[in-house]
């Protein structure tokens, strides 16, 4: 039976199946996070190019989407080329996005009046082909719309990133509805990294991989994007100095 195992044959069969699925007429390329524990949970070893990825915030992040936007910006920063950022609520503060490694010259904003405009602009951007990533901030992402975005992304190999942010925290249960996106992430804020002195350290996030095609769900405690858009594993350390008081004052 040992002769039956032929890695090349298995590879060929995989390629043929992928061809039949229609998703990978080209060789699937991925954008790795550069963190081994995260990349090995994703098929292909990273975020797939030519696919739509959904990112939502957790807790109050469902409304402000602050961490989700930074996480998306970090991914876009690590890709190469121009980025189209479609939104309806222009409350993004770009200095923070620039601190996540995304240069202002690389980002073209497209502000629409309605959700449908954002969807249409995203689809146009994804099928344009010359962009590195297309980011869209959306409240609702129906199945049909996500399918269209996914197909447009597959055609050109552009990464589509959908930042989901809702009007109210209770509406966030909408994130349970199925969509055609390849991966779904939820980013929630965690208490920041402990510092030996008083102050706020590097931001930490709880990153939940809620759904991935051909993969398992996972959870990571990560440090927020650095100046190059990279994240790192940053679990809570058990032994930490007590910095609960602020400069020895009675503030806490």
């Amino acid at each position, binding site marked *: 039976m040992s002769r039956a195992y032929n890695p090349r044959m298995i590879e060929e069969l995989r390629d043929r199946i992928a061809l039949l699925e229609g998703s990978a007429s080209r060789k699937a390329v991925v954008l790795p996070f550069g963190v081994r524990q995260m990349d090995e949970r994703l098929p292909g070893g990273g975020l797939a190019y030519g696919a739509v990825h959904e990112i939502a915030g957790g*807790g*109050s*992040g469902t409304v*402000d*989407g*602050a*961490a*989700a*936007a*930074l*996480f998306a*910006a970090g991914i876009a920063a690590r890709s190469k*080329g*121009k980025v*189209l950022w479609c939104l309806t609520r222009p*409350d*993004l*503060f*770009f*200095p*923070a996005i*620039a*601190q996540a490694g995304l*240069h*202002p*010259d690389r*980002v*073209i*904003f*497209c*502000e*629409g009046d309605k959700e449908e*405009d954002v969807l*249409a*602009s995203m689809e*146009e*951007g994804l099928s*344009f082909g*010359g*962009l590195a990533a297309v980011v869209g901030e959306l409240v609702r992402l129906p199945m049909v719309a996500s399918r269209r975005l996914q197909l447009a992304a597959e055609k050109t190999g552009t990464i589509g990133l959908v930042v989901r942010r809702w009007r109210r925290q209770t509406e966030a249960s909408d994130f349970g509805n199925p969509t055609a996106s390849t991966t779904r992430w939820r*980013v929630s*804020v*965690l*208490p*920041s990294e402990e510092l030996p002195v*008083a*102050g*706020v350290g590097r*931001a*930490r*996030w709880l990153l939940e991989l809620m759904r991935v095609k051909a993969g398992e769900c996972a959870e990571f405690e990560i440090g*927020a994007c650095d*100046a190059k858009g990279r994240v790192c594993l940053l679990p809570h350390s058990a032994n930490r100095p007590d*910095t*609960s008081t*602020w400069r020895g*004052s*009675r*503030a*806490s």
Partner: protein
Amino acid sequence: MPADQPLVVISKSGSKRWISAADTAARKLGLKLGMPASKAQAVVANLTMIDADPSADAAALERLALWALRQYSPVVAVDGMDGIVMDTEGADHLQGGEDLLISGLVNGLRARGLTARAAVADTWGAAHAITRVTSAGTTVVPVGGVAKAVTGLPIHCLRLPPDTVHGLRVMGVETVGELSAMPRAPVTLRYGPEVGRRLDRLFGRMAEPIEPLRTPELVETARNFQEPIGAAETIAKYVRRLVGELTTKLETRGLGVRRSDLVIYRVDNTRQCIRAGLAKPVRDPARLSKLLCDRIEKIDPGFGIERLVLVAIMAEPLEERQAASSLIEEPVVDVTPLVDILGNRGQRLYRVTPVASDVPERSVMRVGPTADETGATWAANWPRPSRLLANPERIDVTALLPDQPPAVFTWRGKRRRVKRADGPERIFGEWWLRPREHAAVRDYFVVEDEAGERYWVYRAGDGVDTDTGSHLWFLHGVFG
């Protein structure tokens, strides 16, 4: 010439000389239009008088109309002696709507030293009347609001011959409302059919097409149809053919399109326009036809279309350039096609660029999507929130003065205990730009609550001196 020197323009007819235009200084001194020149000289001592030159006025007005044609609307014509009429339908979205279009137009003319009044209305007649009577710089009459807007206007703005107006005044008719309420037959019998026609055109009961201004330099292609067309595919097919012809014509002249108009003539003698703008001069038929065909759904063919005209209203020299070989350097992706497509759909496209300002809301400036890349970015040494509230929100805070971060704060009804904090980062007002901010100070803190949510809060004032601010606390941003 000093601006406060009174200036009048004198028209001549035979030996009669009268004032045909006067500037603000002259009007203030009591000079009126139509006043004899000798009387004006008697009233004002050192009056500057210029002889009227109607042909030069007409030529200047036509130049202005051509500028408006390139800038604002595909259908522009000279209206009488002193006005310009435009059909803004299908072109106002490029300027951000009717309000912005006319206020931009009036402000643009004012910057060139011209005083103008503008009005948008359903009919040519109504817009003509309103601009000549009201004192407001810009007026927008809502759709269907013509009847209400014009009833109070005097009849001399109806574009009737002066004799007719005088005759109607003698009859005691002063306003448009009074005239339109009169029975039509006796009025027509006495003053001819012109009065009824003007009223019908004013109220939109009779169409009044605007014959658009054209110059020989405009590159134009047209197509007449034996049988009216109506199906979207057919329109798209002929639009592509027209674009093909237009680009061939442009190629012989070495031009590229910056702005093009598709004018659609329907069999019922009405007209529609589609205007497409481009960020850079373009001669690529595929890109141009995509921009125009994108908006075919906006065309209402009615009973059919009998004529299509495509005009390159604004054309600029376009040089052919050799494409860089992908072997030598990395190809730079040109995003202008995408910018054109999204921009013509009415989306607001922009990039952001740093401004040297410490005040957070002023440190970001929007620039055009195809503006030159400067490579500039913000200093990365201070943490900045990824979402900035447009209006900082008041929070209730318990904090030690002068420079301790909040211990507890309440935002949007939720009380949060601060676990960690950083600050203050003191930001001074820009007194060199805004005198009111001479002493203003904001102290920014990064605060983190028990759940790990991080906020950017500030106190207006330095905590000691009340001249520096109100000492109220605000939440300005949310960190990711």
